[in-house]
């Protein structure tokens, strides 16, 4: 069955340092109700949601089967209910596969995370490592990022100065994004004066701890118009997973990202990614990742990361107009929110951060230590 899949609606909560007055179920419900309000969709058997795919993580929620706590929000007792525990953008891939295979016509995607509830997210990501060779050495995602930032810095010539520019710009953009109400503006001097976490990564180079939820309604081509007049079509997807052990990989050059992007571009029929997208949303968990992923995605020439930051081409080429992940999304939802932001731009619903006449977009997600697992999604509107 070969039918297009469209994003009908997007909803997200505010992403805040600590949503102390909401349980994750409340956040998820807020998203579901917004999606229902926008599309009129329900869980009715003939024309409602066929399948719900949630994204959450047992360790971040400190409970097993983390979707089990919100089966009612997901409509689990009505229909097929699935969970992915990777980067939230996988829910989009999964929903796409379900619709294209003919198993479902209308799919609800819903991701949540309250990073604030864990004492430390490093303690959560530490558990992603094996208990024999890497946990005893004390690895967590922040150490992994430090190793990669050092390797990429040595190769690319990205300096502390470049990294500060990236953070300042991300926060400036986020000021335009009402979903990031907690964002504080910083100067380059403040960034460069912030303490090191894992050299060369400084405190302000890291994505902030935040809580929030995000969701989408996907529908098959022939059903899309029941829910929206402005569908955003998913034209390509690509995933790739690099080796588990950090030492098995070339940390300075993202092999997995190139493979993921190559797959997505091939499916979308894109030959020249540099000119293919009006809007790009890239998952920058740490400042060094923005130029590194831009190179890996083929959106700038390989080895030009430092120059790209110097030239500040990001505004005119519409990279991370939302502020990106540096402005604040939970680890699990970074890519999912990137896809949501890209879709809002193409739907013309991005408010004060709207890019005029945006017709094509790229969204990127990443999970695992030092960019182990990458996902690339390409989007287009009519």
């Amino acid at each position: 069955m070969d039918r297009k899949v469209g994003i009908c609606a997007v909803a997200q909560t505010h992403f805040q340092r600590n949503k102390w007055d909401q349980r994750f179920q409340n956040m998820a419900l807020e998203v579901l109700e917004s999606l229902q309000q926008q599309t009129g969709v329900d869980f009715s058997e003939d024309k409602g949601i066929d399948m719900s795919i949630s994204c959450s993580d047992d360790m971040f929620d400190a409970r097993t089967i983390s979707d089990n706590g919100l089966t009612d929000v997901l409509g689990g007792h009505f229909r097929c209910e699935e969970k992915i525990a990777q980067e939230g953008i996988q829910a989009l891939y999964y929903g796409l596969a379900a619709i294209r295979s003919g198993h479902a016509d209308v799919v609800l995607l819903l991701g949540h995370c309250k990073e604030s509830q864990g004492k430390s997210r490093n303690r959560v990501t530490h558990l992603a490592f094996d208990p024999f060779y890497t946990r005893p050495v004390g690895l967590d995602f922040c150490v992994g990022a430090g190793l990669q930032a050092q390797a990429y810095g040595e190769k690319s010539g990205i300096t502390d100065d470049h990294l500060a520019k990236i953070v300042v710009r991300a926060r400036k953009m986020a000021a335009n994004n009402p979903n990031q109400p907690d964002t504080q503006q910083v100067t380059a001097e403040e960034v460069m004066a912030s303490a090191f976490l894992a050299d060369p990564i400084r405190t302000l180079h890291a994505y902030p701890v935040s809580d929030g939820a995000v969701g989408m309604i996907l529908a098959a081509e022939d059903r899309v118009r029941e829910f929206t007049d402005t569908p955003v079509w998913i034209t390509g997807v690509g995933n790739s997973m690099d080796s588990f052990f950090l030492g098995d990989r070339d940390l300075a050059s993202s092999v997995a990202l190139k493979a993921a992007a190559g797959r997505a571009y091939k499916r979308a029929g894109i030959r020249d990614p540099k000119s293919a997208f009006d809007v790009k949303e890239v998952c920058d968990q740490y400042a060094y990742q923005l130029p590194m992923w831009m190179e890996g995605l083929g959106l700038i020439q390989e080895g030009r990361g430092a120059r790209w930051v110097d030239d500040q081409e990001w505004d005119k080429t519409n990279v991370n107009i939302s502020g990106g992940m540096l402005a604040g999304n939970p680890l699990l939802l970074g890519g999912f929110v990137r896809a949501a932001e890209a879709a809002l731009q193409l739907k013309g619903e991005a408010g004060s951060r709207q890019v005029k006449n945006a017709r094509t977009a790229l969204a990127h997600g990443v999970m695992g230590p030092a960019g182990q697992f990458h996902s690339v999604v390409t989007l287009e509107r009519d």
Partner: protein
Amino acid sequence: MDHKKREYTMTIDTKDCFTIEGKLALPYQYFAGRTGSRFITSLRDNKKIMGLECKHCNKVFVPPRSTCEVCFEDISENWVDLPNTGIVTGFTIVRYEEPHQPVKPPYITALVKLDKADTPFAHIVKGIPLSKMKTGLRVEAVFAKRTTATIMDIDHFRPIKEGPSFKLGYSYDALEVGMSDSFTKTISETDVYLFAGISGDFNPMHMNEEFAKTTPMGTRIAHGALPQCLIAPVLGMKLPGLGTIALEVTTRFKAPTYFGDTITATGEVVEKLPERRWVRMALTFTNQKNELVAEGSALVLPPPSMP
């Protein structure tokens, strides 16, 4: 952590918002697999680091795995012993504190590629100032005193001291005829008594002033070999210097050395013997009045040249 908690309660109105303190803790046994078990037990019992080699890809993996991830060949029997030395291919300095860390921050987490292995693995590096840490550093494993049966049976890696830590003297090639150096020392009564003890020569001409008055010198004199000894610090520590082997020293005594005399022993390169790469040196011993006390020659083997 108390600080964080205080911040939490200060900034939040907790009225009608109750938070339960929780903790996931799950005692558990992880099976390391047959391949992992062999690696861990050989590290634990024999302090030996082993890798697995894919002969097809010509690649040695650490930590070990039973299947080559490149060509999918079964490599589970291709164990190779690896040395304890390697090179740092990447590193970061961890500054934040977490309970899962093996040492107190700040500390260095590095990717270490053992010699003869192809995949680096993450470990701790100690014994180098944080500001001096660099990729390319040569390191060696320091094994833990007590086993934990994990990768931490290697307690950490430390820098290998490159080359000798002493600066060797002039090599054969660096020496030129005419180069000279000397050592000067005042000979005291104590020196003479110590030398008597060392040599067993308690001859009253060195020990007994009343007896010495009856000798042609009319007073005590130092042992003849005592000023001659002063050439040793020249040959061994100055010219050629550290690493020199003395093959032959001959001297002729020319004048007595009295207590309180200041003797200067001088060595001068007079001949290079290319066949054996030996050097002949002329020796002179003078006192504070510039009188020749003794003269002679030495044959030495200079130290090898520094890498």
